[in-house]
């Protein structure tokens, strides 16, 4: 049984079709990289899954629910946590408050408090800098620190699936390593499912897992990340981009 299933999804902005009839399934615990050149529709696809930009056509199922056109908060409550492109920190809230927003929705559970403390602790362990500045205003953080914060925050919701748009954006190489280590660890421990958009296929090839390549709003290739790294089709897809 797949956790996430897209069938025939199309996304439009006015007259522009950003994503065209995409079908895709993702099993629980799977790691999927989406790569592709600029404007391929990767971010749009993620936004549609998260319910931010409802698709113009097609259907999206998540955790046994049809979530097509559902509100983002409902989808989040089903266990999908999305880190959008660009750093959407709550600039005027402190770091800890930012993290707590993500933890808010399970408040009715009995062991909520303990779980939140635990989750906070885990985030701080991954990104010690956040602990040091837990009471600092998030908007004042450096670019990379904000990126750490949003990734940490996404994990606070105790999700089943994390969708991250360009996690390495603005991160120092060693921090990028840590982010991936953490994600892979979670995937191992909790069967967390990962959906990661990266412009560059380098990371996918290092981490392994499944990878799809999008271009012009369509999925061109779907296969094993490491194998694809070498493939000619891949190279061609990228170079084809030069013409705009």
């Amino acid at each position, binding site marked *: 049984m797949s956790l996430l299933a897209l069938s025939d999804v199309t996304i439009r*902005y*006015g*007259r*522009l079709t950003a994503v065209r009839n995409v079908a895709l399934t993702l099993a629980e615990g799977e790691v999927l990289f989406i790569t592709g050149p600029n404007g391929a529709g990767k971010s749009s696809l993620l936004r549609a899954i998260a319910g931010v930009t409802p698709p113009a056509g097609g259907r999206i199922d998540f955790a046994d629910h049809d979530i097509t056109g559902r509100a983002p908060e409902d989808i989040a409550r089903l266990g999908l946590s999305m880190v959008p492109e660009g750093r959407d920190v709550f600039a005027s809230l402190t770091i800890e408050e930012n993290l707590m927003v993500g933890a808010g929705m399970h408040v009715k559970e009995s062991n909520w408090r303990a779980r939140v403390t635990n989750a906070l602790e885990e985030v701080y362990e991954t990104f010690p800098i956040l602990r040091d500045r837990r009471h600092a205003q998030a908007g004042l953080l450096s670019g990379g620190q904000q990126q750490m914060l949003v990734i940490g925050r996404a994990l606070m919701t105790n999700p089943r699936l994390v969708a991250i748009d360009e996690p390495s954006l603005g991160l120092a190489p060693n921090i990028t390593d840590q982010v991936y280590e953490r994600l892979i660890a979670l995937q191992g421990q909790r069967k967390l499912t990962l959906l990661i958009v990266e412009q560059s296929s380098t990371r996918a090839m290092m981490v392994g897992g499944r990878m799809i390549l999008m271009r012009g709003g369509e999925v061109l290739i779907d296969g094993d990340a490491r194998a694809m790294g070498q493939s000619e089709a891949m190279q061609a897809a990228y170079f084809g981009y030069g013409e705009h």
Partner: protein
Amino acid sequence: MAKRTSIAGRTIATPLILSALLLAFALLAVMVGSKPFNQTIIDIFLRVILVVGLYVFVGNSGVISFGHIGFTCLGAYAAAWLTMPPMMKQTLLPGLPDWLIALQLPYWAGAILAALWAALWAGIFGKVLMRLSGIAASIATFAMLAMINTIYSNWEDVTGATSSVVGIPILRSIWPFLIAAILAVFIAWGHAISRTGLALRAARDEPTAASASGIDLPRERLIAFIVSGAIMGMGGALFAHSIGVVTPDTFYLGLTFITLSMLVVGGMGSLSGAVLGVLILSSLIQALRWLEAGVSIGTSTFAIPNGVQEIALGIVMVAILAFRSAGIMGNRELGWPKARPVAPATTGQQQPELNKGVSK
């Protein structure tokens, strides 16, 4: 790449079309030939002047000003001081300096001086206020308006305080108002395509990047403030001549909000929006009035509850904004129809039906 024609040449269509539109309104008034209708059109032209004046600053800088009607007030009183018969001034405004009491200028000279007077004060206030941005700037401009209003409402000898100052020559001809409105449109256009105008529009959403581009933001804003202050002052002068009385309260919150509403409903970032906002909302108001009057003919006057038309106006405004949050024109300008591709906007809604005849 194709050689670009001059900026003026590329954009001149906008003021020309707008002027033609205004001329059409004036001709309509002449054809109908009724005094009240003539006055209605005069009113519309006055609002065009004020809203266009507001656009010069608000539209280009993105800073909402609640203060511009203060300049209208300055202009209106300046016109009163300059054009009333000395006899009237002697009795009503004895605190004026003797030379001013003795002076009586024709209305157009008064209007020009009124514009300069308002511009002078825009310069003085602007020097202080233009350091602010965002909502702080808006509040500061409101404080400026309130100061002007308080002073003019109480400076008995010079402004007649809250009492209406009468004796201002009344203009019933539509042409001076038309000419002034067209003049305002051309000034606004000239400013918008000037270096200052472009710099301001760039800085509107990205002040940080603008200063990294060498733009001296307070200075550019000050220029716009002064130009718009002058237009508002001219509008005030003509306002005075249109009804023959001035009081400070005429130039306070009511007029501030109606002009701001027209600008925003029309499309804050667009000169065409400023003009169309006035024309459309004013026509709507007038139509609602006729509807109301039409219903009341024959039956007794108090059969119809007051305020229905205002309620309708409010609802229409909300509705327009709900469907076009950037206003009727958005950021676009009227232009000659041409097939220029319009890139999809990242935010805001698509406006396909306007694409014809509209160019950026």
